[in-house]
Every structure is written in structure tokens, then in C-alpha cells.
């Protein structure tokens, strides 16, 4: 009996390991994906967001299409509410080799308050690959991206939507990241800091939900430190789609309200005692 139980657990462990290895093999980091490298204000009040686009071996950088849609954020800037999204085409910047693949620089400029959905599309072998990311800009210049060409074209990629929330523009550890992918698999692979960590399962409403765990490195590093989270999904037709999210430390992860209220009470008691004993120097009026 004991031997059977032991055998059962060994089989389960092997099966889990096999499944994980299979995911790693299928969805290893050899796919088209974004990584945010810098966010900065420009002297005219706009914002520049720079990315590295990792291009897998076998994909020709010259065949990669980079497009983005800018969706004015009515909830952030009332003046832009209700406008239709505008689509732009970008060219890849400098490229450099990295491992077996290539990395290209892509920089997006925004002069408005808008949510930007950045897409790269590529062909590697028979399958197509797509890399997506969504980020907010709070530009104030009103200027357009000087290096982008306005277009009506947008790649015909699998339908993908992010469930934006109040704090989506700054995804945090401990808070769910939620998105949907039409005809997607039951689970997608999750990579944190370039390492496969887990899978995000599709829930009853058809959304994939992942809660990035709190991270001591982020807590120590400061409020601008981020970790790179990438979701990767193999579609039934063999296409591969990745979604990149920079995740920052949580506003609420390591706070203690009870402790704070204790400090507040103590401070008020000490202050009140001092005020009562202040003596003639501070007379009652």
C-alpha cells in the first residue's frame, strides 16, 4: 500500500514536471515580446516610452510590423472623452543581437492623456507571432509622435482585450491583471523577470486572471522599480501571442493600518499631555 502511494506521488510529480517542461518548451522565451525600458517627460510636456522588442531566431526584423492605437482617456482628461482611437505605424529603431535572437528599440511619443495599445506582428516559420502591451501616457503637449505614420491599417491579430481598472495604468503586485483572448487556450504561460513561473487559467467569464506576487526587491528598490511580466499563449492555429505588463510594487501590499492608528493615538496622547502641562508660557485664551 505504501509503495503504491509512493509510486502515485512520484507519477504525479513527474506528470507535473512534464507539463511544466512542455510549457517551457512550447512557450519558452523565444517569442516576440515587449519590455519597457524607460518612461520620461520631454521638454515640450509630452511623454516618451521606450521599449525593447525581443525578436525570436528565424524572424526577420525587416518583416516586423509595429503599430499602435491611441485611445483617449476620458476618465483621465475630460477634454478627450469620446474621441475615436487613432492608429499609427512605427519603424523599428536600432537592432542588436541578444542570444540567438535580436532586440530592436521602439520609442513611442505621446502628447496627450491616452491609453496606448502597442502591437508587433512577425512571421517565424509557418506561424505568426504577436507581441502586445498596453500602457498609459499623460502627455500635455498635444503634439503627435514625430516618428510615427498615421494609418488605417491594424494587424489582424487574435481579439484581445484588457479589463482596465482604476489602477491599470500602473499594475501592482497583489492586484489582479485581467484580460481576454478570443479562441485562446485554457491557460497561458506567465513569465516574470524572464523566467517561467506559472500559468494563468481562464475563469468562468472567459478572462485570464493573474495576480503577480509581492516582491521584496521591488519594495526595497523604490516606487519606480518594476518587474517585467509576460503572458504567452499558443493559439489553436499555431500562432503565438504575448502580452507584456510592467508591474510595480503594491500601494497596499505592506501597509498596517492598525499600527498606524496606534501611532496616531500615541502621538495624540503625548501631544495632549504636553498641551495640558504647557504652563504659563502658553496661557489659555
Amino acid at each position, binding site marked *: 500500500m505504501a509503495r503504491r502511494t509512493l509510486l502515485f506521488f512520484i507519477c504525479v510529480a513527474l506528470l507535473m514536471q512534464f507539463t511544466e517542461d512542455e510549457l517551457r518548451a512550447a512557450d519558452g522565451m523565444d517569442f516576440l515580446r515587449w519590455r519597457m525600458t524607460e518612461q520620461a517627460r520631454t521638454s*515640450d510636456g509630452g511623454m516618451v516610452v521606450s521599449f525593447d522588442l525581443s525578436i525570436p531566431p528565424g524572424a526577420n526584423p525587416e518583416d516586423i510590423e509595429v503599430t499602435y492605437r491611441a485611445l483617449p482617456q476620458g476618465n483621465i482628461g475630460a477634454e478627450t472623452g469620446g474621441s475615436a482611437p487613432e492608429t499609427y505605424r512605427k519603424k523599428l529603431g536600432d537592432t542588436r543581437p541578444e542570444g540567438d535572437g535580436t532586440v530592436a528599440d521602439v520609442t513611442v511619443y505621446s502628447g496627450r492623456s491616452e491609453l496606448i495599445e502597442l502591437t508587433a506582428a512577425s512571421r517565424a516559420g509557418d506561424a505568426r507571432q504577436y507581441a502586445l502591451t498596453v500602457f498609459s501616457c499623460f502627455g500635455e503637449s498635444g503634439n503627435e509622435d514625430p516618428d510615427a505614420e498615421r494609418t488605417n491599417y491594424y494587424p489582424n491579430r487574435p481579439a484581445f482585450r484588457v479589463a482596465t481598472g482604476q489602477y491599470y495604468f500602473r499594475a501592482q503586485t497583489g492586484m489582479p491583471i485581467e484580460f481576454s483572448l478570443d479562441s485562446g487556450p485554457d491557460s497561458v504561460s506567465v513569465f516574470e523577470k524572464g523566467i517561467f513561473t506559472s500559468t494563468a487559467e481562464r475563469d468562468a467569464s472567459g478572462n485570464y486572471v493573474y495576480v503577480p506576487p509581492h516582491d521584496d526587491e521591488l519594495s526595497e528598490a523604490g516606487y519606480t522599480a518594476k518587474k517585467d511580466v509576460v503572458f504567452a499563449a499558443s493559439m489553436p492555429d499555431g500562432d503565438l501571442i504575448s502580452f507584456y505588463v510592467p508591474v510595480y510594487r503594491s500601494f497596499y501590499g505592506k501597509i498596517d493600518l492598525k499600527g498606524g492608528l496606534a501611532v496616531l493615538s500615541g502621538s495624540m496622547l503625548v501631544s495632549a499631555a504636553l498641551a495640558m502641562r504647557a504652563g504659563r508660557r502658553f496661557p489659555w485664551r
Partner: protein
Amino acid sequence: MTVRNLRGIVQHAGFIVMMYGGRFGLHLGSAVPCFACPFVPGCGGFCYLMGLQGYIGFGMGAAVASGMGLVTALGWFAVFAASVALLGKLWCGWICPFGLIQDWLSALRRHLGVRERSIPYPVMRRLAWVKYVLLAGIAIIPPLVTAGILHEDFYLPFCGICPGKSLLPLFAGETRYLALNYDNLVTLGFSVALIAITGAMLVGMFLKDRFFCIFCPLLAFIHMLKPVTALRLAKTPDTCVGCGNCRRACPMEIEAVYRERASSDVQSDECLDCAACVEACPSDFALALKFLKVKLFRSSRNYAAGIGGNSKKNELSR
């Protein structure tokens, strides 16, 4: 309607605009000369001190090339200076949401029959340096963060200890700034300091009118722009009878208005332009709140007698 009642109405309207304006699509920008706290979700504008810390941090050192442009920073300063030039310290005495909270606590104290703790004017003058030290900290610390000398959680150092950050968001249901933050030693230090200062300020603001204003660096900054301010308090010393009502009515217990015997300029750095002294003054024309040369409100014996007749409204009856 008395000036005091008018001030109350303006203060409450200002409170609604500053605290909830963003929820109605109203945002006054990043250069508001009062405590419109950006940590209040849906606020109607950002306190200039917050913007200033950001601009100084971004606008200096290595960040010049890639960061916030000095042009933008100077643009917001121009907006701030124009706002101060137009309304002067009315921002403090008539509009500031944190000032209104202090007035609520003072009203509660009076309602409970607790007497006010006096801080004699000489002591208050000696405490005046605190707000200038805070202002200096706002100018010095952010560039050190940008230069990488200080941990980046020192960013917005004044906000880190400002009791407005812990108290004002409560009116929008946000309690997290009253919590200890264990992310790292810097955040823990700031959160302990913020909560301890908040506790001390709550007691101080309950026992003493406008206690926080004694230490407010924004008041100091507004006072530094006094030469360009159109609105100010003026005295005609010849008509002053020396009764001392102005000193007793002043929430900041300023003596300069009472003691001045030669000059018409009685706008000291603690003055909030609340006009309590003008209301209490029984001498015709002795005190006035002026916009350039136009007297918006001047003292008169009839007015003083009128508000004096209602002891519940009269500060002098305490």
C-alpha cells in the same frame, strides 16, 4: 451677511472644488496655492508644493536632458505666481481645504466649551523659521533624489510628512496614508513621521486656531511673493484707537497689526487675510482689505457693533 459668513460659504465651496472637482471634470492644474491634495482620489487640483517638488526633482541635474522641461516648470510657477498675485493669502484664509478642517476643529472646541491655548506672538515668531526650513527642504531634497544620492522614496519629501496627505484623503474614503508602510526603512520612517505629526497637529489644531498654518511652507512661499500681490491688509495708523481688538480676533494672534503706528503695511508672514481683524476693528477706516488701491472691506464701528451684538458669532466674546 457678515464677512465671516461669506468666508465660511467660500471656504466650503472651495473645499468641494478642491476635494471633489476632478469627479466633475474640473481640475485646476498643478499650481494651486493651497492644500488641494493630489493624494485625494478625484481632487480638483494639485497643491503647488507637490508640483514644485516634482519639477525641482525632474528639472535639475542629470534629468534635464530626459526629464521634465524647465519651460514647463517655469510655466507652472507663472500660474502659481499669477494666482498669488491676484488673490494673495485669500488662498489660505478663504479657500484652503486644510484651513477649513482647522476651522472645523476650532468650532468644535468652542462648541465643547474648551478654551483656546494661546501661543504668544513672540513664540510664534520664533517658530516661523520652521516653515522656511521646510521650504528649503523642498528645494534641496528632490535634486538629491534625482542625482541618486538619496533613495528614490525620498521623492516628494514634504508630502511624506504633510498632515494634509493623511487627513484630506479621508474625505474621499482613502485611509492608507494613516497606515504604517513597511516597504522599506525610508517608507517606514516617513509613515511613522507622518502619522506622529498628524496626531500632534490634530491636538494642536483643536486647541489652537490655525495651528498648522504656523508651520505651513506654502504660506511662507506665498508671503515671499508679497511684492507682486494685489490683495493685502492695510492700516491707517492715524485712525487706530489702540483697542487691541485686532490682536484678540486674529486666529494667528498676530501683534504687528496692533503695534504698527507708522506704516500702512501690516501684512506679516503669518497673516491669512481672513479679515477677522478688520471685522473686529471699531475704528472707521483703520483697517482694510485692499485690492491694489480699492478697499474691498474696511473696518467700521457700525459693523463691529453689529457683529458684537451676537455673542455666538463674535470671537471677542471668548
